[in-house]
């Protein structure tokens, strides 16, 4: 039996700045995971990953990350992905202080 598909979001790093971004249902990349498309089937996940190959001018290193649906939208399920939504814990740097409005 194939392993059950667990819900995913597509995530990557922005090409120029390198910060974490998530793919939305409209096909743009958001700095906020809550905006991400919540993918619940493997076929869609594979299609979206194929689409990212046309996005090399915007992002680098796309991959599928596990997610769960929360009140505001998709949320990370693993601490690594959770850290990517905030930034490092030793300084107030990264998303925890930067404005999240420069979607591409």
């Amino acid at each position, binding site marked *: 039996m194939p392993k059950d598909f667990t819900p995913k979001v597509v995530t990557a*790093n922005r*090409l120029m*700045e*390198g910060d974490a971004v998530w793919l939305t249902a409209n096909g743009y990349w958001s700095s906020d995971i809550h905006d991400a498309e919540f993918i619940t089937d493997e076929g869609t996940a594979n299609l979206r990953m194929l689409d990212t190959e046309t996005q090399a*001018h915007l992002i680098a290193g796309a991959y599928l990350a596990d997610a769960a649906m929360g009140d505001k939208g998709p949320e990370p*399920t693993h*601490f690594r992905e959770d850290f990517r939504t905030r930034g490092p814990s*030793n300084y107030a740097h990264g998303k925890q202080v930067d404005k999240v409005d420069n979607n591409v």
Partner: protein
Amino acid sequence: MYKYNDFDESFVRERVAQFRGQVARRIDGSLTEDEFKPLRLMNGLYLQLHAYMLRVAVPYGTLNSAQMDMLAHLAQTYDKGYGHFTTRQNIQYNWPELGDVPDMLSNLADVGMHAIQTSGNTIRNVTADHFAGAAADEIADPRPVAELLRQWSTDHPEFQFMPRKFKIAITGSPNDRAVTKAHDIGLRMVLRDGAAGYEVIVGGGLGRTPMIGKVITDFLPQADLLPYVEAIVSVWNRLGRRDNKYKSRIKITVHEHGIDEIRRLVDARFAEIRPSFSGVDQDMLAEIEAQFAPPAFKTADTKGYEAVRLANPAFRSWTDTNLTQHRADGYAIVSISIKKHGATPGDATADQMRVMADLARTYGHDELRISHEQNVILPHVHKSDLPKLYAALRSADLATANIGLASDIIACPGMDYCALATARSIPIAQEIATRFDELKIEHDIGALKIKISGCINACGHHHVGHIGILGLDRAGVENYQITLGGDHTETAAVGERAGPGFSAAEIVPAIERLVLGYMDLRQASDETFLEAYRRLGVAPFKAILYPQEKANAA
């Protein structure tokens, strides 16, 4: 110090120009990420969790003040005002933007620095004793040989696509401060009949399969060093496992084939290539050596220094912990702690870098070193200048008196930055240092090496920490394993795993319990943690770490 000749200068400039073109082609879409990735890695540029990271080589840990000033400039202009000194004697910038990196590399070239071969399956930055050229216990300064190795290995056509990365460490002292037994090749200078040569150690390494290196030859004449090292790398380049990256390092090759077979193959290869070394390398070495001539040491009265020591307890405490004996009369080696309690190990601000550069210019014969323990060294300071130097360090928040103590912790960037990490390291180091500072016992504890890695790759050298901490992902939660009894020196040993791991909330109390327990177990206040561990074995320390299991067994 070595100054680039015309060849070095044009080579580094050309690489910057090439990379500028590669970045432009990546941005305009002519290069895919798959095509660009190996090119950026060749120039030290990684993509991490939150941003790009640029790793800049500090060759054998040596810098002059102009270079340190430039590192400060990069931190301020292209990063968030700081840089991170690593266990490989490099500096990492955590927040550069892709479009700025060619300018950063161009700035570095202005002061004779680069980021070449700080990544990839190449020979990496050659590391050295951070007290090289200054230590009282040294046979000779190993840095000329390190520089020769740098020149030989940079862009060496045979060694650009090896089975895996390759790390060489060198020391000129019998007291090994360069962790030579945990490198692919370790070189230890030794004397035989009055002539300096090298004991050559191969197959050491930490990571997933920690190994203490084995002696392949106990005395290699200096003139044979380069062909012999080339023979080792050449043999491994052919034999090394390219089918499995976990078995690709030379430590596994040595383990699988045995040191005797590797020695036989290296000797055969050496015999083959030795005649092609016409002596040009020795001429080059002689030229390099001239550039590493010791500075003109001054003579001055040290009575003032002694008087300040008596009058100022804080200064006295700092001199007790942060100074090391120098080869020249009246001089000291100053270790500047980049481990203020509660701060990130190895992080210095641009302002602090400028202060250290200025102090090197004013009091330190223009030299600085980066240690693998993530501190900064002023190798040549006359004792009469120490009170003024100390005052300047205090003003810059750089006067922490904790070198070699419990809060002088090595920690890798861990999951706060690194894409490979499985758990965070920095917050654990911050909490441990803060806790021991609150308890005010670290001077009473004495010499103690705590080393923390945020994944099995062991950049934080946890295997060779007296107390090692390894952060792992256990079922989606950060979990920290403790190893005990590791040793990074000439008596190198890999620590023994103490038992089940601890959660992020449990690990700091566990370390506190362990250290307080050691203080009860030691025979005298001068028996170090490592000595007590070697006398008693692991059992009493396990009992301290896991009191419940002891109770259950009773």
